[in-house]
């Protein structure tokens, strides 16, 4: 009892609650429009999906780290080389445990899946990703009141529902303000190139943010690409190891009607693996992104912190699962299946 009423504990609780309340009042965040397809960012006159840019960012991060780690290789490693060796040796050990002799063959694929997914997932948690981009006139049914910060525009938390969605740059009808109260700038945006923003009734500009970066795995194209590569390699190594015998798994004529049905199910499950691969990663990361958006929107201060921790963990686990499942499927594919009758 006395522990709970300890003045330090009470002060801490009050401080935390106060910060949450003050944060809600002082710095309300916009709830960005959540959409499944990647937003198209105009870069040098070309519209590019921001998830693809995010993937490139992850690539560059990895390549820079690789360069720095292997630039000055030493027999007695230190710093980044040590870290890189720790990661690679650890994962190579795991690959060897599962793949045995084929570790050297499969390791680059599995390691690259792990590293790319991990780095892409963790980049999502860096401030600025999802929140810095180009401010454009609303193309959907929702816009935000813009505030000018120096040469830049910032989205306020004041969302406005538009009567109808017009063409880009077309005439917009100002709608009723969903929320009142001037919000602090939460989502900084690059200066809109066109000054043709629609305005509210009292003359303030409306716009939406097209972020430069958005987590790769929130784009189905990314996860599906990985899943296709993974399963294609599984088929490739299966055929390489077993020759035409590999296909007896799918078209089973020896086992009678039952065997044939099992073969069909095997075939279907091979495609199901692609689906489960891509949607597992996509779903987890997309849900994490939405969770972070909502938490930042509801209570912008302190409350999102544990969810960031959670997403850090989810990002790691999903990368690991993708890599290790690929490895397991590979190991499974090179083993002949008709010898346990």
């Amino acid at each position: 009892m006395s522990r709970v009423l300890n003045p330090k504990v009470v002060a801490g609780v009050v401080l935390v609650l106060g910060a949450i309340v003050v944060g809600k009042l002082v710095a309300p965040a916009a709830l960005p429009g959540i959409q499944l397809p990647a937003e198209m960012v105009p870069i040098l006159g070309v519209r590019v999906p921001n998830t693809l840019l995010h993937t490139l960012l992850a690539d560059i991060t990895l390549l820079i780290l690789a360069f720095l780690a292997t630039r000055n290789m030493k027999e007695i490693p230190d710093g980044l080389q040590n870290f890189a060796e720790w990661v690679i040796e650890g994962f190579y050990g795991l690959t060897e445990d599962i793949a045995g002799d084929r570790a050297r063959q499969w390791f680059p694929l599995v390691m690259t899946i792990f590293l790319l997914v991990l780095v892409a997932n963790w980049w999502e948690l860096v401030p600025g990703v999802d929140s810095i981009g180009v401010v454009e006139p609303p193309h959907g049914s929702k816009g935000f009141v813009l505030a000018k910060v120096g040469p830049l525009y910032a989205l306020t938390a004041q969302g406005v529902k538009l009567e109808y969605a017009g063409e880009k740059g077309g005439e917009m009808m100002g709608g009723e303000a969903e929320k009142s109260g001037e919000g602090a700038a939460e989502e900084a945006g690059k200066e809109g190139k066109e000054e043709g923003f629609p305005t509210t009734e009292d003359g303030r500009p409306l716009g939406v943010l097209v972020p430069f970066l958005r987590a790769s795995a929130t784009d189905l194209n990314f996860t599906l690409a990985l899943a296709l590569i993974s399963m294609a390699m599984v088929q490739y190594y299966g055929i390489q190891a077993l020759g035409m015998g590999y296909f007896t798994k799918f078209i089973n004529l020896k086992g009678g009607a039952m065997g044939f049905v099992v073969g069909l199910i095997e075939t279907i499950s091979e495609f199901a693996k692609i689906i489960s691969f891509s949607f597992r990663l996509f779903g987890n990361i997309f849900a994490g992104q939405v969770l972070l958006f909502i938490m930042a929107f509801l209570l912008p201060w302190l409350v999102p912190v544990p969810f960031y921790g959670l997403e850090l963990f989810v990002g790691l686990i999903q990368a690991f699962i993708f890599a290790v499942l690929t490895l397991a499927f590979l190991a499974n594919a090179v083993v002949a299946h008709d010898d346990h009758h």
Partner: protein
Amino acid sequence: MEALGFNAGFLLAQIVNFVVLLVLLRMFLYRPILNMLEQRRERIRESLEAAERARQEVVQSQKAYEDELAKARREAQQIIERAREAAERQKEEILAEAREQARQLIARAEEEIAYERQQAMAQLREEVAQLSLEIAQKVIGHALSEAEHRQLIRQFLAEVGESR
């Protein structure tokens, strides 16, 4: 699929991106690091083997040294033993010789003494007989025959011998 954001072009872009990344990482990350790990493993193995060899050598040389030492000690012992035996033998010989010489000397001395004594006794006897003959002649005044003299001397000597 469109609603999910599926787009064949972007999909292809992601696939190409992944393949390129895989090739680059394989070239610039996996290969150098795995090679380095292999190299280090090799180096450690060699070092351990060298250490083991050195240890073996040390053990061997230690053993050789100890063998050598033991041998030297044994030889020294033998030399001492031999020397002692020789000394002992020499001592015995010298002693025996000395004893023999002593014995010989004593024997010779005894012989000489006995001889001298006999000589002296004979001479004395002769002289005493002569002397007593002369004394008797002077006392008696006349010469006795040789035979009578001899009789008288013998008698006298016998008396002298008894009185002594």
